[in-house]
């Protein structure tokens, strides 16, 4: 017998966790002598009050969609991919190489090839940890953490010693050619008569990310492979007994996960910066963990959670601009969300389960 109805597991628990995180964040804001209600107002106006705000919110959300999906695909196979940051850095490298050295006639072809390259680079960076987990039993969490740091060194080396244009000071590539500029939401929506902000970075990658949500949903719930991944994640011994190959499933799940993280680069590197800089990922790989946990590893949940975190990021930036609350408030909120929806899940779940069982007994 189920202890709780499904809606409570899917909606109620994340909601309570979110409320707890929000309440604690409000206490933190009070603690540093600011007004939480004023802060929320500033965040809402800043992130949702104009098409400019929306443009940034959606831009961040695009990043988090990719990394959130990535974490959730690995999670379904019982793997915790904490290496999204490194995989996204490598994806950026792939995009930069494609955009810098091949003269593309049109952005659409460039986008497709860049997305493939980004996915391949990200997947390659996840491949070694995946193989070591499957073959050697080295814990994928530890190896992916190590690979994050190695990725940073690789990127640093490539930017400083190889890709930096001669005479330039900061470690970054040259600007990508004008021909492969991705259409922004402004350019996409103008023919429809909507005047979206010109200076906001949200671009066509958002549509790719939404498509990725749908593809991941199909993959996990509508294909045999997805069935195998979920079975393996639920019970490794069960899946093995049913004749599934742990090596194959671990590799495929991590490769897809790495590819999704890598593909984030079409948004932040190709769509926004239009060159590769050192800290282009801005921690999005880690936010993917919070997004996946919050979204209960379902693509639709990930979509909502990515929007929420996009709002938090843009709102937090505005807050730092207009008040004396630093941007790091968002890092605290992110930590609390991970804490309550991930690590302290049982703290919320256990009392709720008791409550539901008590109610059911009364009815019976």
């Amino acid at each position: 017998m189920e202890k709780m109805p499904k809606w409570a597991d899917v909606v109620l628990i994340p909601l309570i966790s979110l409320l707890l995180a929000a309440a604690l964040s409000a206490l933190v804001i009070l603690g540093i002598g600011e007004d939480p209600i004023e802060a929320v107002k500033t965040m809402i106006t800043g992130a949702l009050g104009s098409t400019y705000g929306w443009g940034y919110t959606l831009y961040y959300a695009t990043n988090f969609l990719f990394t959130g999906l990535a974490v959730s695909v690995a999670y379904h196979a019982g793997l915790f991919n904490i290496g999204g940051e490194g995989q996204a850095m490598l994806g950026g490298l792939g995009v930069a190489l494609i955009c810098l050295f091949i003269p593309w006639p049109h952005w659409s072809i460039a986008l497709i090839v860049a997305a493939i390259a980004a996915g391949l680079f990200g997947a390659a960076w996840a491949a070694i940890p995946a193989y070591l987990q499957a073959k050697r039993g080295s814990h994928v969490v530890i190896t992916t953490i190590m690979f994050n740091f190695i990725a940073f060194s690789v990127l640093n080396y490539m930017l400083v010693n190889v890709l930096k244009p001669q005479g330039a000071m900061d470690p970054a590539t040259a600007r990508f050619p004008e021909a492969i500029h991705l259409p922004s939401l402004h350019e996409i929506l103008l023919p429809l008569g909507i005047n979206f902000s010109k200076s906001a970075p949200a671009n066509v990658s958002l549509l790719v990310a939404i498509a990725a949500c749908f593809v991941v949903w199909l993959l996990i719930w509508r294909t045999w492979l997805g069935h195998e991944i979920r079975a393996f994640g639920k019970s490794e011994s069960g899946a093995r007994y049913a004749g599934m190959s742990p090596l194959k499933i671990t590799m495929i799940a991590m490769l897809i996960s790495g590819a999704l993280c890598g593909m984030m680069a079409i948004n932040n590197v190709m769509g926004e910066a239009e060159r590769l800089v050192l800290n282009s990922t801005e921690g999005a790989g880690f936010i993917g963990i919070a997004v996946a946990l919050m979204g209960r590893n379902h693509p639709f949940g990930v979509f909502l959670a990515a929007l929420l975190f996009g709002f938090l990021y843009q709102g937090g930036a505005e807050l730092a601009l207009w008040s004396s609350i630093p941007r790091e408030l968002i890092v605290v909120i992110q930590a609390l969300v991970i804490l309550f929806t991930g690590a302290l899940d049982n703290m919320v779940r256990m009392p709720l389960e008791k409550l539901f069982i008590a109610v059911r007994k009364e009815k019976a």
Partner: protein
Amino acid sequence: MDFLTLVQVLDSTVRLSTPLLLACLAGLFSERAGIFDIGLEGKMLIAAFFSAAVAALTGNVWLGLLSGIASSLVLAGLHGLASITFRGNQLISGVAINFLAAGITVLIAQDWFQQGGRTPSLIGGGRFAPVELPFAIGASEAEAAGRPLSQLLAEASPLQQVYSELISGHSILVYLSFLAVPLTAWVLFGTRFGLRLRAVGENPAAVDTAGISVVGLRFAAVGICGVLCGIAGAYLATALQAGFVKEMTAGRGFIALAALIFAKWRPWHALSACLLFGLLQALALRFQSINIAGVSVPVQLMEALPYILTVVILAGFVGKAVPPKAGGEPYVKER
């Protein structure tokens, strides 16, 4: 490279190894008891902030150290609550703790000091001063002679250079951290508490059957981990540097984690692993690139080397790193 330069590189190796060593031993206690801890970084960071902040406000570095340890213990308690009491995912809890520390330190620093997320520079009693051992050439000798210290050292005999640069002149915490190695080895392998602590990381059910509290032992281990991380963080902000800056741990918690795996969860090996990784940091700090047999090694490779070595060790090419058997698993009493 002349002899004095070599001594100086080794001297900075000792300084840079100290926080790694303390954090590594912290992780050793926790993981030997079956609690994975990827939150070493966060605990060090919050301790670095509170030690520097309190030292700046009171001018007393010892009060700073105590506050640093206390703040680290709070996060350790949170990790214990999540992973022992509520049997949550230990890795996710560690991730949350790292972010919590990264955010909250800057928020409070900005609120208290308004210096863009840093504390004021620590002066005088707000820092751990170097301990000058007897007969070593230190700041007081330089003052008495009226000449710069570097000049005096350059003229000294090689033995005196080693003694004055490498052995003397560190803060008390450095000597403490090196003493912590035999102490840890003794506690873990020479006491009843240590035996039980290791048992709880390998087979908690057996410990439970013997009538010893699994929860109590694991909380004790997490607590020791918190204290050691607290000292590591305080050392960073009040001895190695003079004050807190945002993200000042700069991945040291993860290097310590790497060292722990490299050492295969053994105290004396942890010392060598931390010295090795400290040496790599010291070399990367001093030289932009190094020529080995005509091939120039880029500084980025030096920085990445601890992580690469750890992956190689994890891959099992150089001996196999086997973590404590019950690591990462919450203990559920049979009913």
